[in-house]
């Protein structure tokens, strides 16, 4: 595997028993972080951005996300379930929000707090940062932690475009903790547990880019909690306790792609889905698009409802959230429901806690710290790439011929790992030629592009 300093750990794991080494995940990975070794997928810590695409792609369910033990909540007197609305989007609209939340209470939580309560405050923090940095033309929302990490490793020149503010769940956990302390709880007796729709948010809690301590006690996978709630919803729907939940219609949709737009006055762009995000960042880096204003990006198609730990079709989940938002709006308009007041209180401590001093670029492309050495390696890599078949068959255990060339110059693979090159009988060479023709000649006759 690629050598070098390990920057941080990840939440995505490979189950070696289930992994068939089929290469599907390896070909999906946007940072070429996966190799096949010993017949199993291996993820490189330095390259992984926790986007979860490998887990979505795996046909054998061999990639999983490590979560905290649910029993951990029992260690706290005040057990807060920090829930994003994407969780509500998992449930059919015939279930009332309060019915879902009372199931969470029955499961052992004492309080429920929706991350989206922090929309107004988060937007205030964004605006403060943007006002402080008039020199930046395009701001990138820090909402999706996988986007931030992707920029660090693949588009290092864009790190300064990211709004240097920590994830909303950090603010939410601080606000609810403070609220409980104000009501008389002791700090140590409060446990805040975040329900995550994806791997990136876990990584953001456990191994934050800011390097600052988190206020979240534990993380629970959304699919795990969904199963638990579904079982209860079936038998105890009618006994739902009323819950005073106060999200307004607009904030309900914040996690959806485009959800940040209504909160922002300037020009706004919503980019979702891995491929779209990659294309947009590429153009932004080359300055072939001019996008003054705020770019909101979500690695997952449709936003958080497309997260790898969600259980429902993302389009259906999106519609459900939109439906709930419309319902709230109707109720608010007909005065059957109060429009929750916007709370914009930001203590100096919260502002300080939410700051990110620096988002470090950590390019995965750099071949060597020494320029002369890197130059030699790059030259060699170009030559090797020319000699490889360009089929990207992955039989060498690398996602593409280019990745194998890089592995070779880094000393992690040898030329003869390529099965096209390493053929020792005329009959196998003939068989290959019947399918692929004379690859090397055909490839290199083509004008260099």
């Amino acid at each position, binding site marked *: 595997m690629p050598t070098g300093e390990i920057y941080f750990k990840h939440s995505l794991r490979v189950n070696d028993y289930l992994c068939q080494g089929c290469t599907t995940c390896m070909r999906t990975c946007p940072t070429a972080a996966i190799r096949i070794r010993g017949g199993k997928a291996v993820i490189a810590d330095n390259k992984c951005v926790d986007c979860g695409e490998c887990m979505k792609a795996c046909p054998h369910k061999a990639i999983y996300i490590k979560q905290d033990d649910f029993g951990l909540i029992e260690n706290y007197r005040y057990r807060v379930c920090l829930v994003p609305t994407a969780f509500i989007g998992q449930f059919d609209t015939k279930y009332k929000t309060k019915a879902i939340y009372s199931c969470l209470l029955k499961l052992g939580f004492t309080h429920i707090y929706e991350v989206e309560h922090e929309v107004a405050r988060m937007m205030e923090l964004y605006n403060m940062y943007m006002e402080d940095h008039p020199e930046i033309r395009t701001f990138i929302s820090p909402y999706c932690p996988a986007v931030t990490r992707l920029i660090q490793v693949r588009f*290092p*020149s864009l790190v300064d475009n990211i709004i240097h503010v920590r994830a909303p769940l950090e603010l939410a956990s601080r606000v609810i903790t403070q609220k409980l302390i104000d009501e008389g709880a002791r700090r140590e007796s409060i446990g805040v547990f975040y329900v995550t729709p994806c791997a990136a948010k876990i990584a953001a809690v456990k191994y934050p880019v800011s390097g600052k301590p988190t206020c979240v006690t534990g993380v629970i996978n959304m699919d795990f909690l969904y199963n638990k709630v579904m079982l209860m919803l079936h038998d105890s729907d009618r006994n739902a306790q009323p819950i005073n939940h106060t999200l307004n219609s607009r904030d309900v949709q914040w996690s959806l792609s485009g959800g940040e737009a209504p909160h922002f006055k300037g020009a706004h762009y919503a980019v979702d889905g891995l491929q779209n995000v990659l294309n947009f960042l*590429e153009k932004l*880096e*080359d*300055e*072939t698009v001019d996008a003054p204003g705020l770019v909101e990006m979500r690695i997952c198609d449709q936003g958080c409802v497309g997260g790898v730990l969600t259980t429902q079709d993302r389009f259906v989940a999106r519609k459900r959230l939109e439906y709930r938002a419309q319902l709230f709006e109707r109720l608010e308009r007909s005065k059957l429901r109060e429009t929750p007041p916007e709370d914009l209180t930001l203590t100096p401590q919260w502002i300080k806690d939410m700051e990110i001093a620096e988002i470090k*670029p950590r*390019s995965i*492309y*750099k*071949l*060597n*710290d020494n*320029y*002369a050495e*890197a*130059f030699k*390696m*790059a*030259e060699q*890599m*170009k030559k090797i790439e020319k000699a490889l078949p360009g089929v990207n068959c992955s039989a060498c255990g690398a996602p593409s011929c280019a990745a194998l060339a890089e592995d070779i110059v880094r000393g992690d693979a040898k030329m003869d790992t390529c099965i096209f090159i390493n053929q020792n009988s005329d009959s196998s060479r003939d068989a290959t030629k019947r399918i692929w023709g004379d690859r090397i000649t055909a490839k290199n006759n083509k*004008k*260099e*592009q």
Partner: protein
Amino acid sequence: MHYTFTIERGNFADAGQASSNVKRTLKQLGVDPASIKRAVVALFEAEINAVAHAYGGTIDVDIDAEKVMMVVADEGPGIPNLELAMQEGWSTASPQVREMGYGAGMGLPNIKKNTDELKIDTKVGVGTTVTMIVKLV
């Protein structure tokens, strides 16, 4: 390291491949992001100029230990008044080119801003060769 690319008249959609390739190599070398950006922006501007005004051409890129040298040579109308062309806002681009978001008269000034050395050889009715150097160290 040497790269060669061809330029096709009017093909704005496919422009940018040369700068993408250069960017990839410079990233491998660990060149600082600011220098990469300068080289990539300058090369893209020069390529777009050739796509918009010329009948075709080539891009030659040489990367060595100190610098990246990029030569964009086209067969085209040439630049009748180079001094004017170097001024911000001066443009002879056609309405069609402007409709695509190019032709704001920022091309050459932007190249100058982003390069350490710039040489323009132009002959009316023959073509233009733009030689750009961005220092890496």
